[in-house]
């Protein structure tokens, strides 16, 4: 089981969710984050002075998937989240050692 962590552009969330649902990913958790990277921030203006805002709003998706779904998930994420412009984001794959569903006593892949 792996934890797939993807940082994407916020307005792509809906599309990504649908793409993942289609390939059988049944659950995911979303966090609103601020990202800093190659994509430049914007300037805001307050009473004539300009301020650069370095951090851009991004969305982080975390989903735990069975090992055999990992590459499909990464593929689906890439397709759905890509705009081709700088700032599209990253995907990281992390190992999970155990998983539990709180409601039942299921563990492992069954818990997802």
């Amino acid at each position, binding site marked *: 089981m792996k934890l797939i962590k993807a940082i994407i552009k916020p307005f792509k969330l809906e599309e990504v969710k649908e793409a993942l649902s289609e390939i059988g990913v049944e659950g995911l958790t979303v966090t609103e984050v601020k990202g800093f990277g190659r994509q430049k921030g914007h300037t*805001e*203006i*307050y*009473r*004539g*002075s*300009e*301020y650069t*805002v370095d951090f851009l709003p991004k969305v982080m998706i975390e989903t735990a998937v069975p090992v055999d779904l990992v590459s499909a998930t990464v593929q689906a994420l890439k397709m759905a989240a890509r705009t081709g412009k700088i700032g599209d984001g990253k995907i990281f794959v992390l190992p999970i050692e155990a998983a539990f569903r709180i409601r039942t006593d299921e563990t492992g892949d069954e818990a997802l």
Partner: protein
Amino acid sequence: MNMPLSIRFYRRLTAAILIILGTLALGVATTTLSAQESISAENLLTAAEPASTIDTGDTAWMIVATILVLFMTLPGLALFYGGLVRTKNILSILVQCFAMASIMTVLWVAYGYSVAFNTEGMEAGVINLHSFFGGLGAAFLSGMGVGSVSGTIPESVFVTFQMTFAIITPTLIVGAFAERMKFSAMLLFCVIWFTFSYLPICHMAWSGDGALFAEWGVIDFAGGTVVHINAGIAGLAACMLVGKRRGFGAEPLTPHNVPLTLIGASMLWVGWFGFNAGSELAADGTAGMALLVTQIAASAAALAWLGIEWIKTGTPTAVGVATGAVAGLVAITPASGSVGPAGALAIGFASAFCCYLAATTLKSKLGYDDSLDVFGVHGIGGIVGAILAGCFSIAEGGTESFNLGLQTWVQLKSVLITIIWSGFVSIIVLLVLKKTVGLRVSEEDEETGLDLSTHGETGYTH
């Protein structure tokens, strides 16, 4: 930093005293020479006319005008300022505005009204102590009852109307030292400044024959000197002596809730009609014209500020259009009883330009941290308005007796006295407080935010 400041302070003290004495001499001279009648003469406490009766229409309007001016402070100014600070300081602004409104109400009843409007010892054409301070004969509103009349309205309404001016003026200053001043020091400063700067300047301008500015014939219909310059200068002094906010210049100290600021600005705008048209103390043609020119000046200044931003940065901002409107409202204040639509347009545009420069270029050049631009908008806007009020005034009762040059000189003098007086009082009080209770919260408290550290609360819970 204390050493050089105290040195500078003594220098300023001496200079100030000299200038005041000089100007007084000048004032007496000018007065005897020109013997003008005050154009703001309607603004008087007419306790001397016992035969007058109440006009229900005037009373209706003045009750509403009073409510409108209170509305400017609560919640108008509170929101305008509140939206501009960071999330962690929003409640400190709100508490300060509520506390100021409450304290000033009590002080006004206790001695404020008397020191500002009591005419005991005043005489037309004579400059004496009572040209500066009213007596204490009306302290605790003694002598005022349900039946007392002032002009064509109940005296109770006049007292309350003027009270709302005494509320908003010191509350304006709060914006200058927002996000860092100690609550106790801030209250003490405002109370003392109110007593020694607001009340005398108010008396000089509005208490009628024998009062300093009135004798000169100043045009200050609704409070260019009394309210805006007075508060603007106090704000400048305070933000310099309290010092910059942590992070000023390094991080963006931007508004946490711009819509709040625009709600506040709107309320200031609508309340300002009570301020300006109410200063006529009657529902008549002058009040109507004050209504119209107030609207025109606010609009002209809002458009001008928007335009300047659009040209300079390409992005006309919400904070900008609101600040512009307030700048226009400030500048038309002294002039609202005597200029026409064209004058209002000119004053609005001029004010936007000058205040824009002050709030952006001047502030960043001089490096003081006037958090919410009390000086940049109220100080500068008030000065622009007070001076232009002379230029654009339609002389009352025909033009032959109206001398533009002389009037402008009178306006200038009154502005100057106000600047010196308010600056002097502010600096003294702040220096004393700095040595005693201290002016600033601790670094950690400032970092945490005043809401939690001073008031034990947070503004928002999601």
